[in-house]
């Protein structure tokens, strides 16, 4: 392939990831709401840990030799709540995005300083990448009075980069499994981990109890291979937005399986997959925008309410979702899986040009 054809192909690939500001605005609000309701406070339990448990990976927490004081973590959580509230209303969106991402990195570094990394990195990188997109241009203070559906303002580059990073992350998981026995027909890795999590970690789910009755080696080995195939397929799939969205739909269903069997919720991943959904086409929200005159008043109310929610979490020991006994993470995984099923059904039964959920380009 010569240089000009390669450049043309790359341009087409990147441009296929274009999103309307209105779509990204819905995602921005979902993302910020999730952070405020379910993520804050991060690592509130850490001050109770003795120094003997301190075992950080290489990173910001390893610059220190013991866990921080409670006041430091409270301060960082308040900062995260502040940035997330700014993000919710789209006020200084770029600053809020970068602030949210960096604050999450620092807080997560402390949360993982006892040696366990929860792999919610996509939740961290999404605002850092989308800070350079148009996700603050609609339903926001920054974009007050602007049309949310400007055609020539599509944020294709950051979206393509985000897709690449999602695929990259999946590749690390698939590659590690493929090179550590998951393809070996003599080993049942998914089954083994299920037993390990059930017996040692205490994740005694009804899904695991049901699955233990499935003794077929072929079934469990197929599951191992399917998992590796799914995670490795993301990387080539990123070359085509259609294929990438297909992988996201399958992954969302896969995450529900992981939740039911292992009681491990990858809600943070599912939230980030939501960046690729064309909400405006699905739920008919093409024309809503802040009115320029009433914008600041409305935004102030929303900002105050959002910040209050975040502060309840930041200053307490539990997130607002936990206080309300709302299984927010589980609900997000379920919603993601249902969306994935609907998307796959559309791909299977509806003519492709009518597929609205993750369709390429901007249909008239």
């Amino acid at each position, binding site marked *: 392939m010569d240089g000009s054809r390669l450049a043309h192909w790359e341009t087409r690939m990147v441009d296929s990831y274009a999103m309307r500001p209105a779509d990204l605005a819905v995602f921005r609000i979902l993302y910020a709401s999730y952070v405020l309701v379910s993520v804050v406070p991060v690592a509130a339990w850490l001050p109770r840990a003795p120094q003997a448990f301190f*075992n950080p*990976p290489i990173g910001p927490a390893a610059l220190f030799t013991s866990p921080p004081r409670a006041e430091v973590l409270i301060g960082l959580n308040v900062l995260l709540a502040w940035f997330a509230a700014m993000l919710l209303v789209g006020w200084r969106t770029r600053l809020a995005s970068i602030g949210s991402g960096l604050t999450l990195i620092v807080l997560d570094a402390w949360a993982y300083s006892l040696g366990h990394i929860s792999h919610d990195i996509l939740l961290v990188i999404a605002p850092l990448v989308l800070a350079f997109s148009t996700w603050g241009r609609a339903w926001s203070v920054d974009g007050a009075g602007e049309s949310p559906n400007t055609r020539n303002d599509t944020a294709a580059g950051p979206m393509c980069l985000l897709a690449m990073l999602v695929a990259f992350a999946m590749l690390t*998981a698939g590659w590690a499994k493929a090179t550590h026995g998951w393809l070996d027909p003599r080993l049942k890795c998914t089954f083994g981990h299920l037993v390990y999590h059930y017996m040692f*970690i205490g994740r005694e789910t009804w899904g695991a109890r049901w699955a*233990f009755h499935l003794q077929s080696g072929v079934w469990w080995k197929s599951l191992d291979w399917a998992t590796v195939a799914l995670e490795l397929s993301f990387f080539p799939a990123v070359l085509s937005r259609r294929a990438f969205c297909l992988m996201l739909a399958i992954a969302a269903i896969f995450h529900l399986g992981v939740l039911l069997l292992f009681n491990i919720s990858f809600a943070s991943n599912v939230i980030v997959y939501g960046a690729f959904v064309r909400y405006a086409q699905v739920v008919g929200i093409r024309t809503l925008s802040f009115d320029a005159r009433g914008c600041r008043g409305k935004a102030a109310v929303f900002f105050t309410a959002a910040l209050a929610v975040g502060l309840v979490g930041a200053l307490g020991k539990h997130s607002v979702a936990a206080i309300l006994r709302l299984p927010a993470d589980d609900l997000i995984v379920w919603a993601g899986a249902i969306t994935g099923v609907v998307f796959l059904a559309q791909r299977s039964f509806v003519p492709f040009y009518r597929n609205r959920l993750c369709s390429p380009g901007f249909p008239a």
Partner: protein
Amino acid sequence: MCRRYIFATALALFAVQSLFIHRFGEPYPAIVMPRFEGSGVYRARGVEIETYEAAFVAANGGATTVTPRVLLQEFPVNNHAAIGYFALKPTPTQGESVKTVTWLGRVRAAVFPGFRKRPGSSEYDDRLASLREWLTRRAATLAPGRSISQVEIRWWRENVRVTGGTPQVIQREPIGTLFVELER
């Protein structure tokens, strides 16, 4: 955003990150998803699991035994395995000095003093003291009203096999115990 060769750049970054993880372990932040390698592979004879129980031994000889889940209930459940393997397991290195041989190791230790701070000569006493203090508090909660003199973290290697739809321990052997004398 530079659009040229983006795919090749991503692959190169993947290689560099993989090399780094292979050499130093997984850093944070890193663009990585769960690998699920290592423990938890089911072979023909079942899955091998290392687990432990914490025994709060009273001065008069009685003991209150709890599972890791109960012992570490102050912390999120996904941290329990990491805490157990790092801080509650008796290891041959316990009490030995950390030997930093290579220049890279010395640089790493200087920049990231908290990274893999295995119990060394001076740090070990601090860590043991903090563990003793924490276990003393846990003893007051988990064995109230009893005079606990020592905590024993008893480790076992178990072979678990699923028969008839139920995981069962078919073999169990002790692999070591961490003894921590409590403050009185």
